[in-house]
């Protein structure tokens, strides 16, 4: 009996989708009825020999409307270049606030949340450590016990600093690394995804024209997301549309004899003649799908244009 579990994929765009990525579980390997589907996104295969499975490690699964499992049926054709080009949205550079905020020690709900979160993690690690000690695995128990103590120390440490985001006034996490000694420290707001910098004793908006040779500015992937009309590196008029693929292997699952691959693809990425590879798609071990940009300016345009259209970040993809 096959134990493989398939997950269908669906494109997050409505008409001519721009991004395909890991998506929700569809029972029986079927996609949601009526959704447009194109790209295999997530495959989890139980490779246990004892379970009698034999076959290829990874294979494309195309979504289908309905019907018996194993009989794939594509329900649409690929979006044309012109359709993708028509999806690009004109956008202006969003405003940069001049306000600055100061560092402060976390108090009230921020401190409470920090302590509760860390204590919960410490409790989990403590439980694992206890289990190892119970079964006389002293080294592993010691490692997890040490981690428990360190997390507890971090929970009640008074060395953390917080500040309000200059863009949205949300509070940066205590673990963001802000500190009076860290001049030039760049932090990203978890609420609005804007970048700020600690300099001259204040937290202020990061230089909106900042660029990097390697993609490092992180933005969420939006459901039904669209691209701004401009090269994602420099903002010049686009002359071609590229795509980027990513694949993530859960190495931890290898220890249990399983291969767990998550893959995603973003397409229709506008580029000028000069640039390429300025946007990267990432899936971290927490199954968060993000875009990484070389240009902060174009990342902010992407955020702005998708917010303007009311799009929501796709968020974490639970497998």
């Amino acid at each position: 009996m096959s134990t493989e579990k398939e997950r269908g994929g669906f494109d997050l765009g409505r008409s001519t989708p721009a991004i395909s990525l890991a998506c929700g579980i569809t029972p029986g390997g079927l996609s949601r009825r009526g959704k447009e589907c194109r790209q295999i996104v997530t495959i989890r295969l139980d490779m246990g020999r004892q379970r009698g499975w034999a076959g290829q490690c990874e294979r494309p699964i195309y979504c289908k409307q309905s019907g018996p499992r194993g009989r794939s049926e594509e329900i649409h054709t690929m979006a044309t270049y012109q359709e993708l080009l028509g999806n690009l949205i004109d956008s202006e550079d969003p405003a940069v606030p001049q306000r600055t905020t100061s560092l402060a020690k976390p108090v009230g709900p921020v401190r409470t949340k920090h302590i509760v979160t860390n204590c919960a993690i410490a409790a989990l690690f403590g439980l694992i450590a206890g289990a190892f000690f119970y079964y006389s695995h002293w080294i592993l128990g010691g490692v997890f016990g040490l981690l428990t103590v360190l997390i507890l120390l971090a929970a009640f440490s008074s060395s953390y600093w917080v500040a309000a985001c200059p863009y949205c006034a949300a509070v940066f996490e205590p673990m963001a690394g802000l500190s009076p000694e860290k001049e030039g420290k760049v932090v990203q707001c978890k609420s609005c995804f804007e970048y700020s910098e600690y300099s001259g004793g204040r937290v202020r908006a990061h230089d909106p024209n900042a660029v990097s040779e390697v993609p490092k500015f992180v933005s969420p992937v939006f459901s039904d997301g669209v691209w701004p009309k401009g090269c994602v590196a420099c903002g010049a008029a686009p002359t071609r549309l590229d795509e980027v693929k990513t694949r993530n292997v859960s190495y931890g699952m290898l220890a249990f004899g399983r291969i767990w691959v998550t893959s995603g693809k973003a397409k229709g990425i506008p580029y000028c003649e000069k640039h390429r590879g300025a946007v990267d798609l990432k899936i971290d071990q927490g199954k968060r799908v993000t875009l990484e940009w070389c240009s902060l300016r174009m990342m902010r345009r992407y955020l702005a244009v998708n917010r303007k259209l009311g799009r929501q970040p796709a968020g974490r993809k639970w497998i």
Partner: protein
Amino acid sequence: MADKFGAFETGFERPSLDNPLLFSRYADEIAMRLGHQYPMHLGYRVKVEKKEKDPRKREWLVDLQRGWFSGARVEIKPLAEKPHRVRVRVSWQSRLMSVMEKGFTYISMVPLFFLFIGLTLATRLGFALILTIVVAIAWAIVGYIVMFAVARVCAAIFGNEFSSETRSALANKIEQFPLPQGAPASTT
């Protein structure tokens, strides 16, 4: 001034999307100048290899070889924290070493494949993968040490023009080559 490893740091003042292109031109410039200093009619061979596909793993290599047993490699590698700066290192390399590395890689795939199949039949696939990777890493380390030793012995027997002093002098010379100056930062 190059350090004792025949390496030095250079680069641009600030990040720019044009910097990788300029570093690529810098590699070409080094190859061109080395080509003048070590001409082909005297038996030298200069080759440029550009690894630019993955922005996080960019690297430019300029190989300078004479015959099979002697040569040097100029590695231009961006710093992880500051990709607008690069570390330029002149290391020892030979054509024999390059050929052995490639040959070793391809030849090793056969026994590792059979090892993987055998382990898969004996255990679960995940464990087979882990064990194969561990064996492959150990195999690669041992293989590299043996190949390096063979290449250096051959160089010692047949003549090694690029000793550590020569490489340090070469690094100092390369350090004087100016970085190409391109268009201003591409953010408009």
